[in-house]
């Protein structure tokens, strides 16, 4: 073969052809403008975001976004605003490079969003029932979206109880909103691991409160969102109050890289949490020991 054999020239990029044919990339985010950026605890910051695209607002409680910043990547982030609101609210804990970069965002900055993704809460499955919401730590963030959705429909649900546990009173999120929620019919039982001087709520784990709450026999559903370690124990406590696998709803946290059921990180058995979840009826997770 000649040393000077001419190599054929290939056109390596057909990007324009793909785009002109309307091949939409599911990986392309839409910008949102940060309207408010408020530090709400030592580790969490609350954001109000005006989305550039209406489709971002078409979410239900329990769904999530992939939220990113160029140069830092993306992560799955819970939606904390209620469905139908005109602005997106996020509450983000700083744990890594990306989330620390989110914490540096201020009014007017841009944030990049894909979604909404996944299956959220089916409100019709909760209608007519007493609901016990059990939130641990930042589980209150997605729970707030569900609480707003439920409280917006007075008379459709039975007795509503929120059991909310945090490490310390300072780590309690949305404390300033709780009086409003109470006025709208939510019984709130808050508990902390480490109380300080003025703390008037409970002390100890959320599971200690479950035996004490009032609930209608056979007509109560439980909703659990919290850190991974919390689920097993809360489920047992709810079981003890007569709630079965059909009566308990959970939202599962998982590592996610795509949001569209491809990257594999969120997979439990045959379930991709980003598509089939993150909200599951407990009975749907039967035979999946890795769910919790």
């Amino acid at each position, binding site marked *: 073969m000649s040393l000077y054999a001419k190599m054929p020239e290939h*056109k390596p990029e057909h990007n324009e052809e793909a785009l002109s044919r309307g091949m939409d990339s*599911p990986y392309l985010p839409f910008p949102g403008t940060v309207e408010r950026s408020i530090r709400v605890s030592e580790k969490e910051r609350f954001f109000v975001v005006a989305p550039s695209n209406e489709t971002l607002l078409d979410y239900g409680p329990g769904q999530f976004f992939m939220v*990113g910043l*160029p140069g830092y990547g993306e992560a799955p982030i819970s939606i904390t605003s209620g469905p139908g609101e005109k602005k997106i609210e996020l509450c983000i804990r700083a744990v890594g490079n990306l989330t620390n970069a989110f914490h540096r965002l201020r009014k007017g900055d841009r944030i990049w969003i894909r979604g909404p993704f996944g299956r959220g809460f089916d409100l019709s499955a909760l209608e007519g029932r007493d609901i016990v919401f059990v939130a641990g730590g930042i589980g209150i963030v997605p729970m707030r979206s569900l609480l707003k959705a439920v409280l917006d429909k007075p008379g459709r649900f039975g007795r509503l109880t929120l059991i909310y546990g945090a490490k310390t009173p300072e780590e309690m999120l949305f404390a300033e909103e709780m009086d409003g929620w109470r006025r709208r019919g939510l019984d709130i039982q808050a508990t902390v691991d480490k109380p300080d001087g003025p703390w008037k709520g409970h002390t100890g784990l959320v599971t200690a409160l479950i035996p004490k709450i009032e609930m209608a026999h056979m007509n109560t559903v439980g909703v659990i969102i919290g850190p*991974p370690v919390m689920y097993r124990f809360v489920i047992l406590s709810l079981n003890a109050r007569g709630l079965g696998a059909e009566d308990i709803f959970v939202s599962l946290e998982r590592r996610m*890289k795509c949001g569209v059921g491809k990257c594999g990180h969120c997979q*439990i058995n045959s379930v991709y949490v980003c598509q089939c979840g993150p909200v599951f009826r407990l009975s749907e997770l039967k035979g999946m020991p890795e769910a919790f």
Partner: protein
Amino acid sequence: MEKIPKFKYLPDRALNSLVNGLLREYKVCGTIEKDGFPAFGEVSAADELKLTQSPTHLSAKGFLFPQREVLLRFDMRTSAHVPVIEAERQVLFGLHPCDIRALALMDRIFAHGVPDPNYLFRREHTIVIGADCMPDEYCFCESLGTDDVDEGFDLFLHRTGGGYLVRVGSERGSALLEKYARTREPGKAALKELDAANERRRLAFRAKLDAAPEELPAIYAKSDESRVWERIGAICTGCGSCNNVCPTCYCFDVKDEVGASLAEGERVRTWDGCTLEDFAKVAGGHNFRKTRAERLRHRFNRKFRYLSDTFDSLFCVGCGRCSRSCLVKINIADVTNELIRENAGA
């Protein structure tokens, strides 16, 4: 009525003219010799293509699902994002039946639910030319029924003395053959030789599964508590080789890379592996598959059980690559047979 494959006969020198013709239009990726081993690589001249009947260490998946792939480009100053969906017109030359089966599974994965345009666009621009093979001690495709294909390729070549019997799998394949190679009708001797070669191949399989493929999902479903997982978990090094070499492992990571000028960057996806420690770890530090035993159980189940719920198909094609490349000799056929035995005993 059984479909009788129609063959054309392609003499060796006509194969060269086919490859040279393809090189004018396409990037040709085929089996080449790399460090003394058969491997998939880009071919720049017909004589570099070395059709081999031996399995390659790596599959050809990287030509459709690259190890590193740009999904987006962004400008760090304006933060404008541009989606990237790139493809080259390419030919994958010399894929064995297991790899053609694997491609068909990858096609289904990336088209399922929210379609992945990056894969699908590249796939659309890809021509597949298969070639026959001989099993080594790790191949067990015959036990899974993936040892032959009658679709999923444009052309398929069977070695016979002095040339190839070619099966045409698509109109595109037929047109290429007509354009670049002079074929003739095969003689009786060549067809007879093919039958003999198929029989030789059938007898050459040493690794076999002791159950029918359709029984495997149920057997795996009953094996969550098997002690096999602890045993292989104890020797697994967690290196992720099995994921990398697997033609149907498609999990990926996504991360941003910023250029040295800090002016622009790319969002790229790279292969990831469920046997790697951090794969199922969340930001708070909790790892949903903490142990190697759990991670291996997950990987094996993905091949034989989990995905069959959605796709009604096994995702192992029996290529034996994971066993072949395993540093500690965990063998997927042996493990599966052990589970089959445990269930037979129960």
